[in-house]
């Protein structure tokens, strides 16, 4: 009974991560879009995540920079989902799937590192 409860809690936690993560990223993208419409967005072409320049753009209220931030968050939502699954499996003590999910996470991490400048 207790195990079923934690399993349900884990499932709910995953659902929460999905929903709020994507909502937040959508809001930020929408904000960037709105700013671009009303202030005329400039923004330099994107290519790779250079933390300095991206955050710089955001703080300068560069509309496309903000939109780009939203996009990055969107891209990270599934990654968070995998992390949440790892934790959930850990709580359920299903170590086989902790391992499998971690493998997936590592592959996606490899992809992310190509985007780092």
């Amino acid at each position, binding site marked *: 009974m207790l195990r079923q409860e934690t399993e349900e809690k884990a499932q709910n936690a995953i659902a929460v991560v999905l929903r709020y993560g994507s909502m937040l990223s*959508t809001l930020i993208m929408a904000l960037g879009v709105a700013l671009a419409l009303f202030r005329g967005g400039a*923004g330099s072409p994107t290519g790779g995540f250079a933390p300095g320049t991206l955050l710089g753009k955001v703080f300068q209220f560069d509309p496309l920079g903000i939109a780009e931030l939203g996009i990055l968050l969107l891209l990270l939502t599934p990654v968070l*989902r995998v992390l949440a699954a790892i934790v959930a499996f850990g709580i359920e003590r299903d170590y086989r799937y902790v391992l499998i999910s971690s493998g997936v996470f590592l592959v996606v991490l490899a992809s992310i590192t190509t985007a780092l400048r």
Partner: protein
Amino acid sequence: MDLTWLRLAELLVLGAFAGGAGSMLGIGGGLITTPVLTLVLGVPIHQAIATSLCCVIATSSGAAARYVEQRLSDIRLGMTLELTTTIGAIGGSVVAGLLSREALAILFAGLLTYAGSSMLRRAFRPEKPTGDGPQTYTVKRLPVGMVGSAGAGMISGMLGVGGGVVKVPLMYLMMGIPFKVATATSNFTIGVTAAASAFIYYARGDMRPVITAPTAVGVFLGASLGAHLMRHTPSRWLIVAFSVIVFYFAVIMVWKASHGGFPR
């Protein structure tokens, strides 16, 4: 491309349509967004693919939360298949950077044709009726599933789709997974696959926020709506209409590729 009100409206509507159709049919919507972006709105195909990948993630995130709640998604199976899918996705994304626009267009046309015919087959061959309660099943032919998933991943990375159009039949027809579970699981995994692909496109500079952001917002809205409607299976004519559109895109893609329709 500047962001005008008209452009914004176009992208929002495109996104909403793709998100709605995608979440109802268990796919990511990339099959719609890539052709429309590149054929109708003149977006270079690599950038269209980058945007479509984001749309797939938006569809997946918008719909998946409800499916997990509804306990339909088989997360264990999904994760297992994602091991090979994500590797395929990275490979596909890298290859896409090496291919010309025309080559990608032709490959996309092939995928569209496959997707359209597989949709039609699904429409005219009713699935075995399953209850709405918890499904019991055993996973069969996992190795085949893993290999097929790698292929689905490659397609995702190369063409900006979620891979669901390959994975749902794979799970349902080959692996003995009930249809609704396959669809729900696919909705959940395509996001991970698309993310693995998307970072590579982002690194390559193919991601254009001015195109991606409005479309993704539209997708999120459409997918959230579509997930509500998913409880009622899409009617046959809807699937047929979808297939017709998809075949039409395939033809246009090939035509444009062979007539220099993707200028530098």
